[in-house]
């Protein structure tokens, strides 16, 4: 989230899409109810299903699963054509004025640079025109010391502040989205045209300076081959409306697991190192190569480019935390020890490698491979082709028990397996970071159950044993293994308090904990495991364990309650909450404001004493200094503007272009053969979801919750059930090209037939994900009830999040 849970109460309009917070995040969602009661916050809910969120919404908008880019494109078009956008904000805080390079083009659903054989884009042409001569005139970037090599001098982008140049981002964007008329959007999404226009008018009305609109979403938007572009569509809309950086606004992702935010921040993710530093690619032989290619470059004279400029400091400090004294200026701070992946290494790729027999083993430290799918049958094949599997978990999972799942002959499965009982969250301390980026320390309540061990104990001892073996018998490139920095009091069991301090970082000369990442250096004198957490454990102690309950601004920041990254800032990009003079767009809802000598309010996302008349760009994390309506080269794999494509499995042609599906979505071996080409055999659109009584799969171990929501079910429209002779409460079988499930039929008016295209009726089917063979009522049951038996093995073109929403099925009475 750019904002945070309590901030919902500051909104005038909340657009909830692809989420059901009333059921899945109820205790955070209640702040929307507070807003409704206190200031009349209006709530718009867009979803394939009418849910409890719809029930309390002012407007419910049914939508065909997977057509969200068309929806947002339509809103963008409506806002532009009706001049609802916040003009001063757009000029000041976005790249609307940037001139795009002449070679960039878009035609029939394809951007320039597409390679059909490889299904990839060469993104070179997705760039800005440069000012002539600026490369020579520009001064070198400040702040980089010795040891990291030269940095390329910047070359500034050309701009047209009038926004009239036909090649400026604003005009290209207007042209791009002019195709997304309410009529076409209605035909694609199934939203009646008048309803779409009413929503566009209501949310578009937040484009004035005195209104705040928030977009709240969850995995209903990310579970698509074009998921990243859907989210970018939100970003474009919110920037046009001036809704980013302000209280009550924002682009707000509701995350589904307790520390999914924190463990992304800390980079248990293939493509990043802690703090969102990019993983180096082959060919970046030295840190200088890396710093030349990866960080953003300053693209305008007034761009602070804080992230790009300080990237080297963050990386060197991290390498000092990883490798300690073995990381020196002489060895490029051990940069070469960081592994460089050959290709996308997301977990879809991992299981594909396993299925192909190219992987020896997997350690699951809380991952539940088979149930998370997609295509659970294929996932189980992957596990069966491993030599070994280690499960570190407090409870049995579908992955730990895959070898004796119903219908599986254990004697056929040669995978050796270890189940290592891990302690649960309540048996250890440590911090969880919530969706609003608040890192909250928890204390150990109970001792370990039985012989269960902390994850750190397991991995700490693994390391000590490995280290011993490398010393005894040698092995492949032992240097990084033998030189990992290991300063922990118990080498077999690094303490969470010790690690929290390591993550924060310290000055290696004075030994003092650092209070801010501004003090990090690239000469080896500072160490910090993750720069964005610098400030979380200072000389004043553990800031994540603070419990102050004061709110002096009345906005709801609660700066004394735990700690949020970065630097305890509660709203990201909050410089954009103020105008060119540093005054709030809306004085009743200030984010930060200039008081004549400093920025006050929230913790400023900006240099605290940089006066407005210095004119520095509000977005310090981009090279542009402003937000990107157009995403230039290397930022996405599938386009600088979000473009609508149909799902992998779809009942419709693409009504906007001849490019039916996302042309850059990666196709795994054998997977396309398991996709339905059209809707002849599988005519209905299915979408998966979650219920309030369960969280993914672990709650099948909790008796109260199993009792409260015991049975797998399938939600069907009344009209479809009538056609198929399926009774409410009876049994229904759902088939996709990959598998089938069977459960209780929930026949409902909550899923309405939609009219799409030239009048075609589309039925949608809802399938909750929580049931499986390793717990609850599903334990040992033969009837398949794992939703992901149905889903296709394909992921988002950028980040490979599987397409769990919007695939094709057929249904029958069982």
């Amino acid at each position, binding site marked *: 989230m750019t904002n945070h*849970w309590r901030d919902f109460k500051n909104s005038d309009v909340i657009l909830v899409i692809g989420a059901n917070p009333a059921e899945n995040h109820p*205790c*955070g969602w209640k702040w929307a109810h507070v807003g409704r009661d206190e200031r009349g916050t209006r709530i718009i809910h867009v979803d394939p299903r009418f849910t409890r969120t719809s029930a309390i919404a002012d407007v419910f908008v049914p939508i065909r699963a997977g057509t969200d880019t068309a929806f947002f494109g339509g809103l963008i078009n409506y806002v532009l054509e009706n001049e609802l956008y916040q003009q001063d904000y757009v000029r000041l805080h976005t790249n609307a004025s940037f001139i795009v390079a002449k070679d960039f083009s878009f035609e029939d659903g394809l951007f320039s640079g597409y390679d059909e054989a490889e299904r990839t884009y060469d993104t070179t042409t997705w760039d800005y025109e440069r000012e002539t001569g600026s490369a020579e005139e520009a001064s070198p970037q400040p702040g980089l010391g010795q040891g990291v090599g030269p940095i390329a001098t910047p070359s500034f982008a050309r701009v047209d502040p009038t926004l009239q140049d036909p090649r400026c981002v604003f005009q290209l964007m207007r042209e791009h989205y002019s195709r997304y008329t309410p009529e076409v959007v209605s035909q694609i999404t199934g939203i009646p045209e008048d309803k779409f226009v009413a929503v566009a008018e209501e949310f578009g009305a937040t484009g004035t300076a005195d209104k705040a609109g928030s977009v709240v979403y969850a995995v209903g938007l*990310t579970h698509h081959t074009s998921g990243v572009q859907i989210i970018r569509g939100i970003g474009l809309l919110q920037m046009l409306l001036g809704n980013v950086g302000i209280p009550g606004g924002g682009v707000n992702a509701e995350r589904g*697991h*307790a520390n999914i935010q*924190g*463990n992304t921040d*800390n980079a*248990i993710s*293939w493509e990043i*190192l802690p703090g969102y530093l990019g*993983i180096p690619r082959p060919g970046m032989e030295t840190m200088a190569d890396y710093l030349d290619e990866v960080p953003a470059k300053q693209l305008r004279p007034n761009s602070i480019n804080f992230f790009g400029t300080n990237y080297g400091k963050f990386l060197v400090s991290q390498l000092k935390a990883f490798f300690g004294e073995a990381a020196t200026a002489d060895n490029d701070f051990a940069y070469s020890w*960081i*592994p*460089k992946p050959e290709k996308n*290494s*997301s977990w879809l790729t991992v299981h594909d490698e396993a299925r192909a027999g190219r*992987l020896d*083993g997997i*350690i699951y*430290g*809380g*991952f*539940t491979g088979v149930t998370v799918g997609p295509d659970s049958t294929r996932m189980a094949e992957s596990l069966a082709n491993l030599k070994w599997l*280690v499960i570190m978990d407090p*409870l*049995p999972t579908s992955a730990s028990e895959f070898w004796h799942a119903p219908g599986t002959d*254990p*004697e*056929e*499965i040669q995978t*050796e*397996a*270890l189940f290592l009982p891990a302690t*649960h969250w*309540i048996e250890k301390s*440590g911090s*969880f970071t919530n*969706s609003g980026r608040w890192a909250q320390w*928890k*204390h150990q309540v*109970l*001792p370990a159950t*039985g012989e269960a*061990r902390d*994850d750190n104990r397991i*991995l700490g*001892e*693994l390391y000590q044993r490995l280290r011993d073996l490398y010393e005894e018998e040698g*092995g492949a490139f032992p240097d990084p*293994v033998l030189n*990992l920095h290991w300063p922990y009091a118990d080498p077999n069991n690094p303490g969470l308090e010790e690690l929290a301090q390591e993550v924060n970082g310290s000055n290696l000369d004075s030994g003092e904990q650092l209070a801010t990442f501004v003090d990090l250096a690239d000469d080896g004198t500072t160490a910090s*495991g993750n720069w964005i*957490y610098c400030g979380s454990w200072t000389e004043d102690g553990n800031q994540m364990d603070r419990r102050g*309950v004061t709110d002096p601004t009345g906005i*709801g920041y609660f700066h004394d309650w735990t700690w949020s990254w970065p630097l305890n800032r509660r709203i990201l990009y909050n410089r954009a909450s103020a105008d060119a003079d540093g005054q709030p767009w809306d004085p009743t809802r200030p984010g930060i404001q200039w008081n004549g000598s400093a920025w006050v309010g929230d913790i400023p996302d900006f240099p605290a004493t940089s006066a407005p008349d210095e004119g520095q760009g509000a977005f310090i994390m981009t090279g542009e200094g402003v937000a990107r309506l157009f995403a230039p080269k290397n930022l996405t794999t599938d386009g600088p503007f979000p473009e609508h494509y149909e799902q992998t499995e779809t009942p419709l042609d693409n009504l906007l272009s001849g490019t039916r599906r996302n042309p850059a979505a990666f196709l795994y071996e054998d997977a396309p053969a398991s996709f339905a080409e059209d809707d002849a055999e599988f005519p209905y659109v299915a979408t998966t979801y979650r219920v309030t009584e369960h969280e993914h799969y672990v709650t099948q*171990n*909790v008796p109260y*919750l199993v009792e409260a929501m015991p049975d797998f079910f399938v939600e069907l429209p009344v009209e479809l059930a009538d056609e198929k002779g399926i009774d409410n409460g009876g049994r229904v079988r759902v088939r996709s090209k990959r598998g089938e499930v069977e459960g209780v039929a929930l026949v409902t008016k909550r899923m309405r037939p939609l009219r799409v295209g030239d009048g075609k009726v589309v039925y949608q089917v809802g399938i909750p994900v929580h049931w499986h063979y390793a717990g609850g009522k599903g334990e040992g049951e033969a009837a398949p009830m794992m939703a992901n038996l149905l889903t296709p093995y394909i992921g988002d073109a950028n980040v490979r999040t599987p397409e769990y929403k919007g695939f094709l099925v057929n249904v029958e009475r069982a």
Partner: protein
Amino acid sequence: MENISRRQFLQGAVGGGGAFGLATFGFDASAAAQEVRELKIQNATETRTVCPYCAVGCSMIGYTIGGQASNTEPVLVHIEGDPDSPINGGTLCPKGASTLQLAVNQRRPEHPMYRAPGGTEWERISWDDAMERMTRWVKDARDDHFIERDDEGNTVNRQTGFSFLGGATISNEEGYFTAKLMRGLGTVYLEQQARV
């Protein structure tokens, strides 16, 4: 009222009793104090934690009894939302409200287990045996699949023999530690239960 924490409030009510209670709250809280002493959590130890389910981050209080004396273990008697939290203000959803059953759960395996190739059952093994096996598997996978230079001669120092796939209910500190260790081993197949 908004600036008084729950603990301060209770101290005012219980500790103050008569005059202080009247002055603070406008009523005599001594009767309420009597009631508080009847609750099963009266002598419990309060420990603050955070809900393990979604990422709202509801603050929770775990109430345990015992565990102070040697050879005793604390018993968890209750979990409730922390009223001080500006996020959840004491509320919990059905999942959060039933976390006691997740915390104290009969389905928890109590010891390491091994499953042989083609085996039909889990077999109990010791931690020492389990760690020895795991270490050997990891080292062999790393040694057999470690690439110092790729076909183009680039230094890549990666191992593609095994993958670590983490969960999303481990803490930041465990997450960072995992990333540090796995990158140190050269692991590229490092992911967690995100993108699900």
